[in-house]
């Protein structure tokens, strides 16, 4: 149970660090996470099942997700706020419909059973301990790459876009390209996370990639604090506990499922009321006064 929960926390941390780049650092509310997660999971699972080595398959899953992220970024380049959220949501639902209906490739609602466990240079990671070891290394790798990325001048540009797109533009920055790179990079980690998920659970079907899982990822990012990678990991630890523990209470599965949903949707609302920017969230760079004014203009 300890290993299971910790492995899930790591998988979700990797996925949500990717989401954090888009939502937390760049400030675009993406509802497409489940799609990238699913693309990565299906790609990697199908590749490994047809004999491609594990590491290449995982990276391929990430790259395919990144390509879709890039295309989505190109299409949504002019959209902001609600429109971006809705467009990414429509994209995610369309992707899921493809998972369901392209039965020749994905076996549709039947799902893909028997996905092999990872094997690197002849060493098969069959026990959960070995798994945990492998996934911790991957998490540290992802964390180092992302931290380097967001601390670089390019990462600072992302925050500038979040705080004031017009100001960033007036400094001669290429907003569209920056936004696109950040979405693609977020999608890459989403795909990698999906691939790791598929190889751990060893079974995937389209119902694993519904909007609920996107919401779950968003809550992890928001609860931990947008624009903070350690906050995201904290969020993943917290939310996995909230979500998985009711399973060990001996309730009926249907009741436990709706109870889980009820608990984390309440947490979401309460968190927004108490700390709209999350537990380890940053303060807005602009003064509170002008942000309030911004709120009024938005609502006017």
């Amino acid at each position, binding site marked *: 149970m300890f290993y299971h929960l910790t492995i899930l926390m790591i998988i979700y941390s990797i996925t949500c660090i990717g989401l954090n780049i888009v939502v937390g650092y760049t400030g675009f509310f993406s509802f497409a996470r489940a799609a990238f997660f699913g693309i990565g999971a299906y790609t990697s699972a199908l590749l490994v099942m047809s004999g491609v080595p594990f590491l290449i398959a995982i990276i391929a899953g990430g790259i395919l997700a990144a390509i879709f992220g890039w295309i989505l970024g190109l299409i949504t380049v002019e*959209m902001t706020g609600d*429109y*971006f*959220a809705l467009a990414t949501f*429509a994209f995610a639902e369309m992707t899921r419909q493809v998972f369901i209906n392209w039965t020749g490739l994905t076996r549709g609602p039947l799902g893909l059973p028997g996905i092999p466990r990872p094997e690197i240079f002849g060493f098969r990671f069959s026990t959960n301990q070995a798994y945990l070891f492998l996934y911790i290394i991957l998490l540290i790798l992802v964390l180092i790459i992302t931290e380097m990325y967001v601390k670089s001048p390019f990462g600072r540009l992302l925050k500038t876009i979040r705080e004031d797109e017009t100001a960033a533009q007036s400094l001669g920055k290429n907003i569209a390209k920056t936004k696109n790179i950040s979405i693609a990079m977020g999608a890459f980690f989403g795909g990698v996370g999906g691939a790791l998920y598929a190889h751990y659970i060893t079974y995937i079907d389209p119902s694993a990639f519904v909007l609920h899982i996107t919401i779950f990822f968003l809550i992890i990012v928001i609860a931990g604090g947008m624009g903070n990678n350690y906050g995201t990991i904290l969020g993943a630890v917290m939310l996995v506990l909230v979500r998985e523990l009711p399973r060990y209470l001996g309730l009926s599965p249907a009741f436990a499922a709706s109870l889980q949903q009820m608990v984390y949707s309440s947490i979401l609302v309460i968190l927004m009321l108490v700390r709209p920017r999350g537990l380890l969230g940053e303060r807005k760079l602009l003064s509170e006064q002008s942000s309030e004014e911004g*709120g009024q203009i938005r*609502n006017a």
Partner: protein
Amino acid sequence: MDYYSQVILNSIITGGIYGLIAVGYSMIYSILRFVNFSHGFVAMMGMYFTYALSVQLQLPFFIAAAGGIVLTALLGMIIERVAYRPLRFSFYLAPLVAVVGVAFFLESVALMVWGGGILSYDIRTISYKFLGLYITNVQIGILITLLLSVILLYYLIEKTTIGQAIRATADDIKMASLVGINSNRIVVIVFMLGSALAAVGGTFLGLETNLQPTIGLSVTAKSFAAVILGGFGNIYGGLVGGLVLGFAENLGVTVLPTVWKDFIAFGVLFIVIYFKPSGLLAKRQERGGRYR
């Protein structure tokens, strides 16, 4: 020919239902520029409130439906009070995130109380043949109620003082406050009115198809698509957009296999956001969300 007039009749009915739900959505949006993600879930709750009163408490259907509408209006008021009002001037994503939470909370409540199975209202349908078209007594009822609701809504918005205040607030919330309109009260009224309309639409959806707690998400998506199609800033935009969507869905299924129906619906939403973000009946050009 007969086949297509039947499709058109069905399109009008489903489109009208979508439109009625979407009007509530577009009223809230035109005043607050706020995507009320929970709207479809509110419609779902309205559907189940009517079910609880008519099937579980054995009340006559019309009384049950009226009760369901009142309960849903109260639910709208609570949502505004709990999840929207405290966050109005907060971080710009906070209200959206909070209503997403509300939406999934409502879904889990429905799952707990009424279970995940498919239910239906206990109503006997009689089929009539009229001018070569098949129509049921339920559908006739829906059409009449739809028409009445639209007329009533038109009267309320255009002819009464409250309607005048709603229109003024939708036009410019600051200016409306300056001339002495209590904008907080208007927001509450609009939330209640929108939820009541959603309950009517939800009950109709339950009559036309069946009751499922998971319907909320697709209703939210479809009413948003309807609002975008119809045009923001126009209270009736959702109605027109709903009709367009109803036609697109029913005609699309005559060409493509039905398994792709949801793909078409979300594809239409995606295309509309891309090409016509200001909608068909837009008052003024608007694009994007953060710098309105």
